[in-house]
């Protein structure tokens, strides 16, 4: 199925949907959709019998910093009934990037969206479990963003300050030296 036939089917299923074709060099048709229409289009893609994209193979995001719109969220879908693949993309602005969740349409999206939030910092509205997935819970920043440094050189921070003052420390060392004789 090529992108044009697919777009015609989608526009029947979701009247007024804004779907534009994009260039693709692999075997998957590629379309751009607007972020507000993602839940409706996702449902149509899964439930329309002529499309039947029941398998969400991948959900990821690409950061095109410093370009605007900065992010592209990519959904790779497979229709097992028709043996076709589709790449659906959504452009998102850099400021306050957020998007509606599709985990109610494809349960597989749950952890994939958590991973995108964790590593890219794109929030998914209505997500049932919006926590980090791979990084520690108290991590600051989103490592896969292009403006996130590859190596951070920071002095390690102690959880508690030392309980002895510099003078006491020196006195202790001096006393040890004397007693050791």
């Amino acid at each position, binding site marked *: 199925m090529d992108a044009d036939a697919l777009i015609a089917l989608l526009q029947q299923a979701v009247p007024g949907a804004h779907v534009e074709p994009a*260039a693709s060099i692999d*075997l998957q048709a590629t379309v751009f959709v607007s972020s507000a229409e993602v839940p409706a289009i996702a449902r149509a893609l899964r439930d329309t019998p002529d499309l039947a994209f029941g398998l969400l193979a*991948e959900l990821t995001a690409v950061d095109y910093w410093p370009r605007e719109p900065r992010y592209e969220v990519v959904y790779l879908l497979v229709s097992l009934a028709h043996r076709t693949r589709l790449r659906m993309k959504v452009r998102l602005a850099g400021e306050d990037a957020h998007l509606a969740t599709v985990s109610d349409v494809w349960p597989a999206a749950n952890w994939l969206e958590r991973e995108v939030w964790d590593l890219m910092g794109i929030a998914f509205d209505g997500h049932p479990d919006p926590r980090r997935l791979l990084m520690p819970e108290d991590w600051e920043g989103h490592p896969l963003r292009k403006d996130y440094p590859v190596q951070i050189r920071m002095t390690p921070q102690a959880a508690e300050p030392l309980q002895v003052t510099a003078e006491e420390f020196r006195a202790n060392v001096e006393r040890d030296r004397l007693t050791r004789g």
Partner: protein
Amino acid sequence: MPELKTEVMTVNMGPQHPSTHGVLRLVLELDGETVLSAAPTIGYLHTGIEKTAEQKKWQQVIPLVERMDYLSAQSNSMAFCLSVERLLGIEIPERVQWIRVLIAELQRINSHLVWLGTHGMEVGAVSVMLYCFREREQLLNLNEMLAGFRMFPSYMRIGGLREDLPRGFHAAVRAFLDAFPAKLDDYEDLLTKNTIYLQRAQGVGVISKEDAVAYGLVGPIARAAGVDYDVRKYFPYLGYDTLQFDVPTRSTGDVYGRYQVRVAEMRESIKICRQVLDRIEPTGPYAIKDPRITPPPKDRVYTEMEALIQHFLIYSQGFTVPAGEAYVPVEGPRGEHGFSIVSDGTNRPWRVKSRAPSLLACQALARMIVGGLIADVIAVIGSIDVVMGDVDR
């Protein structure tokens, strides 16, 4: 008699539990021996390979992606090479294509052997592990012969292979293929009709066909539940459409079904290996002839100025890949995987994203173990064959 006090007990399983195949942590809520809820925690093995890959040149990414799913190393590097080659718009020689198929299928047998051995051991059949690792050793020896490296050979290169097949490789592979089916029968004698194994495996960890698709499960887990999705049949690559093989499926969706599917898959892989081995000529091209992408042979580097310059350019600057986005799915041992790569037209990838079948299998784990017994949790974790390196990347 006073009423016995009952309460829900929370058990923390892992991250250092021997049956979690790495570092998977499960927080289980138990009522007696019944699992009421399960919350997997992952990320202990996250090493940021995708971020690291963005700093490397294209050909330097290959050793990195081999270390993601460490049981299907060559399948990973093949998927990565296929995606980059699609962006570069190059066609690899037919001989290279068949060598890649051969290596990928041997890798599938290798990975399934590790799975069968560890899974057998976890459900109490320790001898299966010893036998499986004996045969796996021969496959690792083949890798060593091929590339001098047993686990992560980095033999696949963008544009072909690193070097030609070593002398005697055909004979060595054929010897393995001749001996292996009898060994496989031995493993089946140990497990397939073993009452103890049947009781541990049948009806345990069931997932329905609908749930398998909805949770994005692919590969043997989905095929055991009746989904006949195999990338080699649905979206053929590397000439798989010209090879004769079947896709084994079962409809039970339980641990035993996954066992049957994987054992049958090893037999199909042997069939594929035999066919492609006949198609690989003893000598011929092992990479494309493009001086920008593949380095010249070492003897020319030592004797010709142009070859030295070409060698130097490839290993210092690398090569550029046209801007664009590509994802070529392949059927790895754990199901569809592949690399979603984005290039901005420079000599380093802009984004490399691995589709990790183990991640989705881990996500669906809770669905398979809730309502079952705690003893079955181990059998189910083993049966979904998660590699934590692939889950956490």
